[in-house]
């Protein structure tokens, strides 16, 4: 019976089915993992007060979020050096985020459950998100301004909230001044310097030019001074107030409000508060600049850099891809040359992406960029303008990388357009170009769109070549801003994918940064899956349409 069952081949079919199931489970698992971890990041977790017996027998109070639990069998725990009693089967440990890195030196601790004396979630535990040193956990004691106590105990909380709102407002003014106004002045000063140097190089720096430049320079400098005094005032305002808080060990610490981003008491928040907090954090994540070596705050520059790079890339790759596809389908005789081109297209698709990075760095950056600098920007030497990795070279490199995607998709679209349509157009007296431009390409435009979307999805997730041709950990300025000529193609930029790599693997405090990486990964996955699904839907619609046409 079993033998005949095996002979029938049924088990093998089941095995094949199991392979498909395994693949599906893997993809669902990966997506699920990213979604669950990524979504949870912004939810305010409850902070526990734990009375914990340390190894020396002392009982200490700890504040922290319990973020992970591990259960180890007694035998394994023993080999890793834990003392286990005979009646204990397992060792249960909780990972607790205790924050206060500036005070204790560590963010996380593993606590053994058997040593936890008791555990509670008192409502008055406060979480302070700071600009430096990560989160602070403690109890609010008082709010002070210029040394005088404004409020203490019960009233302190509301006063603190109000004060923080004020401080944040001033802070945003400061950022505006520093980034926008002073940034613009610095940019103009640099431009002036280059202008002067350029004239010098051309030997046309006469007295009138020199005095004009100096005048302008002086004007900018006075403006700069003005902003500096403004800034000084603002900073004074921000620095005046502070919070006094008690840590888990009972010590009182002073936290200047200028270092505080937000405070909240997660244990006494209602569901609505938590939802509001969630969206508040989500908004910050999407629109703010990163803090603390990218491990906190937002990822706006990375989103911006990715989008801009992808847009420049699209502008470059679409015409080339479409022309190549049109050649293959509409102009070329199918034969040796088209075969060769198809091999080339497949190779372009198959060459490891890092090789494109190497090529981009050597050819675009050093050869093209170096020569552009020599010809057009001799004044800024020895500092390179285009002779260094930047967003333009990254975009061009990636357009080379995604070219096959556009070609293949467009070609498929062209192939589906019934011959009768072209013949009809030609028969009515149109030239080949007119046929192409007026009938074929418009009909193929959804296919071109598909190709472009897939190319964008590919480019958005590609990291290896970008590491060589223009992506940086932290870009001081965006490649698009209010200073002429607005688009700065020579600047370096931040990228979502690289952000994940950098924060997840290069940052000093990987453990603390991990939730943020999951959130970033989720964003990237959503964007890419969204793009891909759109492409698939467009393609399917297109197929339906042509099927109808043929019928």
């Amino acid at each position, binding site marked *: 019976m079993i033998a005949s069952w095996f002979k029938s081949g049924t088990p093998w079919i089941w095995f094949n089915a199991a392979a*498909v199931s395994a693949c599906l489970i893997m993809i669902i698992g990966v997506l699920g*993992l990213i979604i669950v971890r990524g979504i949870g990041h912004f939810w305010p977790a409850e902070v526990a007060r734990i009375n914990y017996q340390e190894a020396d027998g002392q009982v200490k109070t700890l504040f922290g979020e319990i973020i992970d639990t*591990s259960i180890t069998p007694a035998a394994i725990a023993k080999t890793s050096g834990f003392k286990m009693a005979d009646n204990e089967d397992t060792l249960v440990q909780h990972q607790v985020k205790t924050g206060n890195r500036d005070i204790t030196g560590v963010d996380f601790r593993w606590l053994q459950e058997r040593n936890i004396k008791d555990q509670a979630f008192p409502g008055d535990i406060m979480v302070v998100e700071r600009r430096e040193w990560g989160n602070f956990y403690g109890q609010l004691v008082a709010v002070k301004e210029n040394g005088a106590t404004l409020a203490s105990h019960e009233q302190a909380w509301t006063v603190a909230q109000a004060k923080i709102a004020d401080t944040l407002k001033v802070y945003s003014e400061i950022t505006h001044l520093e980034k926008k106004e002073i940034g613009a002045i610095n940019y103009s000063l640099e431009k002036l310097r280059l202008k002067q140097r350029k004239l010098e190089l051309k030997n046309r720096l006469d007295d009138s030019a020199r005095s004009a430049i100096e005048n302008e320079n002086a004007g900018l400098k006075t403006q700069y001074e003005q902003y500096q005094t403004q800034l000084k005032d603002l900073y004074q305002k921000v620095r005046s107030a502070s919070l006094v808080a008690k840590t888990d060990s009972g010590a009182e610490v002073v936290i200047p409000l200028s270092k505080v981003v937000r405070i909240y008491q997660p244990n006494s928040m209602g569901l609505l508060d938590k939802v509001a907090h969630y969206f508040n954090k989500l908004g910050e994540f999407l629109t703010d600049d990163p803090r603390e070596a990218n491990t906190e705050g937002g990822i706006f520059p990375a989103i911006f850099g990715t989008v801009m790079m992808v847009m420049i890339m699209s502008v470059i790759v679409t015409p080339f891809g479409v022309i190549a596809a049109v050649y293959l389908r509409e102009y070329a005789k199918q034969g040796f040359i088209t075969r060769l081109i198809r091999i080339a297209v497949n190779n*372009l698709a*198959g060459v490891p992406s890092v090789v494109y990075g*190497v090529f981009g760095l050597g050819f675009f950056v050093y050869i093209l960029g170096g020569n552009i600098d020599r010809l057009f920007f001799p004044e800024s030497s020895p500092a390179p303008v285009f002779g260094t990795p930047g967003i333009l070279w990254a975009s061009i490199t990636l357009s080379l990388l995604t070219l096959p995607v556009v070609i293949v998709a467009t070609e498929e679209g062209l192939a589906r357009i019934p011959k009768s349509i072209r013949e009809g157009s030609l028969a009515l007296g149109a030239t080949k170009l*007119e046929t192409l431009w007026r009938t074929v390409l418009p009909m193929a435009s959804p296919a071109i769109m598909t190709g472009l979307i897939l190319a964008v999805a590919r480019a958005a997730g590609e990291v290896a070549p970008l590491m060589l041709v223009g992506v940086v950990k932290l870009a001081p300025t965006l490649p698009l801003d209010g200073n002429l000529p607005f688009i700065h193609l020579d600047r370096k930029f931040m990228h979502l994918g690289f952000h994940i*790599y950098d924060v997840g*693997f290069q940052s000093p405090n990987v453990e603390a940064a991990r939730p943020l990486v999951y959130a970033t990964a989720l964003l990237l*996955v959503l964007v890419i899956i969204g793009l891909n699904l759109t492409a698939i839907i467009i393609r399917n619609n297109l197929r339906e349409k042509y099927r109808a046409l043929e019928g």
Partner: protein
Amino acid sequence: MPENLAKNPTPTAVTLVAGNAYQKWRLVKDSLVRYGVIVGGLSVIVAIVLIFFYLLYVVLPLFASAKANSIAEYVLPEKTLGKTVLLETEEQNEVAARFTDTGQVVFFEVATGKTILTQGIAIPEGIHITSFAQGSDISQGGVAYGLSDGKAIVVKHQYKITYPNNQRLITPSLNYPLGQQPLVIDEAGSPLEKIAVKVESDKTILVAKIADKVHLVSFAQEKSLFANEATITRTSAVLDASAKAIVDLLIDKDDNQLYLMDNEGLLSAYDIRDKAAPKLKHQQNVIEAGQTVTSLTFLNGDISLLVGDSSGLVSQWSQVKNELKQLVFKKIRSFKVSDKAVVAVESEQRRKGFMAVDAAGTVGLYNSTAERQLIKEHIGTSQPIAAVLSPRSNRLLLETGDEKIHVWNVDNEHPEVSIKSLWQKVWYESYPKPDYIWQSSSASNDFEPKYSLVPLVFGTLKAAFYAMLVAMPLALMGAIYTAYFMAPQMRQVVKPAIELMGALPTVILGFLAGLWLAPFIEKHLAGLFLSLISLPIAVLLFAFLWQFLPKTLRQKIPEGWDAAILMPVIVIVSWLAFTISVPLEAYLFHGSLRDWFSHEFGIGYDQRNALIVGIAMGFAVIPTIFSIAEDAIFSVPKHLTVGSLALGATTWQTMTKVVLLTASPGIFSAVMIGLGRAVGETMIVLMATGNTPVMDFSVFQGLRTLAANVAVEMPESEVDSTHYRVLFLTALVLFIFTFVFNTLAEVIRQRLREKYSSL
């Protein structure tokens, strides 16, 4: 333009009425666009060819041979001032110095031989110079004169660069770091027969052979904070090297070791870390019987010694630990210069290379790591007197017996690279035996770069192998099922879903592999193995029991949805396996499986290892293989399968005997393309392995691949340096590798498409 129109192969109705300008313009546009499109289409080929040739263009200089050509020849400047004992040049190759046996230093222009400055060393009346030596760490520029009254003078030659009128001006000068007064080496006042010196900013060590003794004297300078005067403390010791005819002395750059060479080729190493009590460490004969040592010098870095002998051989000796963990001298390699005696060996100052000159004026340039002879030229017509290689190793000066100086330009950019240094075992300095090592850069000048590509290629293949081990069965079996057995409605969902898996950015897969999967597997290694064993059994069992289920229940699930039913089975079984494995592991292995492996078999466990890479990269490769293989199987013409079934074959028989055979080229090309992808994948390996270039077959050890290596090191490598070009070489290797696989796969697929259409 009309000629162009005539060539237009697709004449349209328009040609007939092309009378007016507008019509003409239409046709002109049409043909312009035609050529534009043709150019555009061909540019794809141009792009791929450009990439290849550009990479090649960067790589080729690595293998270009070094060149040397004579640029000047002139009479020895100030030849009346005595015989040359040392020639030196400075960094910019503008000024050279000639030290004579009478204590004169002649600075002259390298290009013309014109004397710039002549300075004499202040030697007391009635005393003469008995020995001379160049100080170790040549870049310090120190030299020492041994005098006939048991004293020595230490002098530094220096070059100050100034830019008056935007022109570079190099001014040579001499200075005395320990003062102009001769230093007492031997209190008895016997002449110093041989001398060696090491000059540092705050310490100077002199070693001298006096009669049958070797004296070691060190002067430590201590500058007090306020006074300009430095107090000098003198420490001295006498080595028990008596009765040996010492011909050469050398102090290494950390002044830890002193090497003495006697006339019979016996090399002794002394530990001189304690300057007051030097100890003999070991000694050994380094030369063949009947030969004599003619030259002894350090290779850059002062780890290896270069011994030139009378048979024209230069051999590199290094201290290596033997089986008994004792340090002994080992001959690392040797270079045959000619049959004449070697008269001078000069090390490069920034690389592991050297220049050797034989008695007949043959000059050879060698690199020790690459074991390469780079240049061999015959210079001059008479016996060479002195030779020097400039600090940047791009100029060489040779003085010959006919009182001439020959200046040669040396073009030797990448001596470290040879086929041997890239692909074979190389005996690096301070290593006990030849090995494959990749270690490209370091901060210091005297670092020996190790450019063996073998560990990287090994890592690449290892990662690809494990990835294919995971991906191939899953993807191919999945493709077979999806294309042939699966219900069409389910296929419509499954195929895009798996293809979507391919669209996931690899940086996310790498991040999950490195930060989630690696710690998870480290903890649940036993669970992984248990589920690998239990899953097939569970599937088989489930399939077997399935046929005994009541028909009514079975018929509720339409045919071709087996994969969907299996999903909960797989999830539950693997969950069970992972849960049970924890206590099971503790019970069976008395601890974790990892520890058991390392105790029982000595297999270490890296958290980020080849297993993790295999799983993560397998995940990335599955969609590629799946998609192409599925297409190939799905497009097998229906009449073939229908015919087979009609002849009474079962579906499985049809599958294996008809469908798979027909589609096998397509499946093969799917595997090729998958392999190409696995070889070139960067981010996953970068994040999921420790990136250590080790050569270890163990699945629990990390690795470094070619692609990850490029991503890690490229941003830091200096443009056009050897390192940069070697990285381009690895990119080229990757390019060629994937090019071969992809072209092969594409040609096979094109053939297959033709075959299908003819069927």
